């Protein structure tokens, strides 16, 4: 069984790579070991060398490539997030990220549709759909876009801002919203997140409480997170410092700031970037329910 999954995994990665090459994206490699990640309240990097860390995402280095003039770049790489392990999580996992200069998050949503349709045609020609738990998801049926607030109101009869204030956001999202999304037979984008949930995203024009961020769900499984990039270094530094204040309040270690990134951010054109979990993409293609089934070895097997 695992042999079939590994064959499918190799195929999905090859087809994904071809997809971006054919569309004129430059495949890049950036260092895995870096002095600072973008600090996140709930993501803990794996520390290795004294004061250096394994990347939690290649975003910092990839955005610096946008600053130096690259317009369309992608990367398939490994990321590490400390102590994340469950049926959908591995502490070390494989991430696909791509970035587009002179675009916003709308362009990335179109990319997602084309990529998943291309993978289905090429890797799943007979089956023709993705699957997770009991859901079958057809990437050729019309994709849904629902604002996060609308999803909270419609499926949870709750206001997302209210849930955030009361510390119920994660609980409602995972126990009410995600199961409701599992009922869709097409992929669903949740769009427009409260700014506090999007530390590196640009806010919507004329509404600084909402950020241009989206999450892609298939069968209730979160597959990708994309946004229009914030390129205001002052605002970005404020948000990073706010994140660190929140970490300290919660008894977490303060994280170092990526200074060279902050120093070049002003030169970054209006851009959009997205991270998609390759392991989860393979889970959906294989129709399996645990991440263990799509990797060569789990940490427990090492």
């Amino acid at each position, binding site marked *: 069984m695992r042999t079939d999954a590994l064959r499918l995994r190799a195929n999905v990665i090859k087809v994904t790579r071809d997809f971006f090459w054919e569309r004129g994206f430059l495949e890049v490699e950036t260092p895995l070991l870096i002095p600072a990640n973008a600090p996140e309240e709930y993501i803990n990097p794996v520390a290795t060398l004294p004061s250096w860390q394994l990347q939690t995402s290649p975003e910092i280095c990839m955005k610096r490539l946008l600053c130096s003039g690259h317009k369309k770049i992608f990367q398939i790489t490994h990321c590490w997030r400390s*102590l*994340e392990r*469950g049926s959908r999580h591995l502490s070390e996992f494989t991430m696909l990220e791509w970035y587009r200069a002179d675009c916003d998050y709308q362009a990335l949503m179109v990319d997602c549709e084309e990529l998943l349709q291309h993978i289905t045609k090429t890797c799943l020609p007979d089956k023709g759909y993705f699957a997770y738990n009991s859901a079958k998801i057809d990437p050729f049926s019309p994709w849904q876009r629902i604002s996060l607030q609308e999803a909270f109101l419609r499926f949870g009869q709750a206001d997302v801002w209210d849930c955030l204030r009361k510390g119920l*956001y994660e609980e409602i*999202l*995972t126990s009410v919203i995600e199961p409701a999304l599992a009922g869709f037979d097409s992929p669903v984008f949740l769009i427009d997140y409260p700014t506090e949930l999007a530390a590196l995203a640009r806010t919507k024009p004329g509404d600084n409480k909402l950020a241009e961020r989206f999450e892609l769900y298939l069968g209730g499984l979160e597959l990708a997170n994309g946004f229009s990039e914030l390129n205001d270094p002052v605002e970005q530094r404020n948000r990073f410092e706010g994140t660190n204040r929140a970490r300290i309040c919660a008894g977490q270690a303060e994280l170092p700031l990526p200074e060279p990134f902050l120093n070049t951010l002003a030169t970054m054109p209006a851009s959009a970037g997205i991270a998609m979990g390759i392991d989860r993409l393979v889970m959906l293609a294989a129709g399996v329910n645990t991440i263990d089934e799509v990797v060569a070895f789990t940490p427990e097997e090492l």
Partner: protein
Amino acid sequence: MYTVADLKKGLKIILDGDPYLVVAFDFVKPGKGQALYRTKMRNMINGSLLDRTYRSGESFEPASLEERTMEYLYKEGDHYTFMDQQTYEQVVMEEETLGDAKNYLLENLKVEVMLFGEKAIGISLPNFVNLRVTATEQWAKGDTSGNDTKPATVETGYVLRVPPFIEEGELIVIDTRTGEYSTRVKG
């Protein structure tokens, strides 16, 4: 102390003073959100199931449980007394805690007693026990009713279905996992 990072299937922890066994566990973390640790746990004393969700920073007291070989001594009312043959230490368990195990308790039977601190919270029996039939109806030869079993009472008071040829006073083997008749002890 355990932290949320130690949670996994099979972990035993103390909750509200009772020992619990983690029977299902998943790590849930929505994008950029806080991690949730979802567990399903079984109370090791009364067997009830409980769903609990934890967040980073929470900690748990390990439940230390010990299994000891003890001999069943006697019953007084609803209370059953067992003794450790090495230390002569005695523990008492209530009928409710023993559940179906009480059906097979014959004096001097060796069982594994699960101890939570000083308190006995359950026993494991041998898979098979031998018990003598104290009452059963005579099998009428030529009975055409089609019944291929009949009720029988054994020396612990337990009633089960046995084949028609079993007679009063016979020793039979009972499978304690199913509560069913297994075979007849010849001799």
